[in-house]
């Protein structure tokens, strides 16, 4: 059988080297971490990397914060090029749809947007808040969501908020192709940041925590890659 996996760059310096060159295409990935670990920054860089290479991207915001505020803060990063807004990167707020619609309707709304734009990269940020509105059908919803996203032929990053001490949201982890953890640890008086690739299907990946920094120039940087 001939089954070479196509890969797309994550956009995070140092991460592609940890995952055999990039994220598998197509795939659905979970980027999990507690508040302030850089999930949205990671997701933004992932899309800007695609836009830079001419790919079409969608950023779905759910119920974390209005697009306006997310963009106001992310515009501080040098990699954020306003030229891409509304062209290569389309921001769509689905918070209202999540509040007002059932799981089937949410999936249909996503289908409509994706079919119209035909993106190569998608972010849903964050996916975890959706569970509060779906309750009993959450696992079925996630299964259907991940299946559809893969069949739309793109790489999707779902961000997942976790409580302090929790590694990842387990109900999402089983459904996705890859899991990237962003985390803090206390070391003496310091709080250090790390990235860890916990799972990446079809990919030889570096295991264990790798130190990261968040810079205004490049967003998240895997420090090992600097030296």
């Amino acid at each position, binding site marked *: 059988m*001939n089954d070479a996996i*196509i890969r797309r760059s994550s956009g995070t310096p140092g991460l592609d080297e940890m995952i055999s060159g990039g994220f598998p295409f197509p795939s659905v990935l979970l980027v999990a971490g507690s508040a302030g670990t850089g999930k949205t920054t990671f997701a933004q860089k992932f899309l800007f990397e695609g836009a830079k290479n001419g790919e*079409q991207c969608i950023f779905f915001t759910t119920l974390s914060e209005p697009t306006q505020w997310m963009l106001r803060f992310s515009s501080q990063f040098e990699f954020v090029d306003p030229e891409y807004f509304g*062209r*290569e990167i389309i921001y769509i707020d689905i918070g209202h749809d999540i509040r007002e619609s059932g799981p089937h309707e949410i999936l249909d709304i996503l*289908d*409509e947007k994706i079919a119209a734009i035909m993106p190569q990269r998608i972010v849903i940020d964050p996916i975890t808040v959706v569970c509060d509105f779906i309750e009993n059908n959450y696992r079925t919803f996630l299964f259907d969501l991940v299946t559809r996203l893969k069949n739309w032929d793109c790489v999707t990053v779902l961000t997942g908020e976790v409580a302090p001490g929790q590694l990842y949201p387990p109900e999402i982890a089983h459904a996705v192709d890859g899991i990237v953890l962003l985390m803090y640890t206390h070391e003496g008086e310091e709080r250090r940041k790390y990235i860890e690739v916990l799972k990446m299907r079809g990919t030889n990946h570096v295991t264990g925590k790798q130190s990261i920094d968040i810079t205004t120039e490049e967003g998240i940087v895997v420090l090992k890659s600097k030296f």
Partner: protein
Amino acid sequence: MVYETEVIAMRDVISQMMKTSQNRLLVNTDRVYLAKTNLITLKSLLEERGPRGIFLSINRPYHYMAHLLRIHKVDYEEMLFIDAVSKISGERKMEWKQTTFLDSPFQIPKIFEDLQLIGKTPDGSTSIIKIIESDFVVIDDISAIFHYNELGTGKRFLKEFLDAVASNPKSFTAFAIDRETQRDVYEFLADSSDRLVDMGNAAFMEVPKELEEEHAPMARPSDGEGGMIHE
């Protein structure tokens, strides 16, 4: 109209081919733009060749392409879908009346023997739809055949298929494939195709067959059009 420039260019190529009794078109595209390229190709074929096309879906359930056609306002009412993947996809959308579902993509090489491209007519009855009776046949996607079948088996199937098309001047087929990731299969198909088109990231460029070997990959859309949505 979406991708108007690309559709016009593709229609022009198809039209020229029809005038010269050529009927096997090979399209090179970056794998990540395959869906977009197939949409452009299908729209062009439906407008230039006619509505009674056959769409063989191997890579993903047929309804994704049907959905794209609907969203992008392309009339596909008379198209027949042969879906080799829905039954193993975990998908639950399998409602379209003009669809024949295969049990798995492993059946693809036997499709001529078992089906002779059987479809269902709009009134729900089954009929034999042979290649020569259709306006075109599109396979989405060729490289997926090799995910489920040995290289030799897949090539034999494609050879038989292309020979069948070549021997029936009224038929027409178009394939899209990523030359960079499937070079061996691309070259094999190029040998049996009449015309080559390079879509790269869905921007259009026709490649004279004799120059094909020297042809560089398409420019990225930052150099012009291609990655943008034309609405």
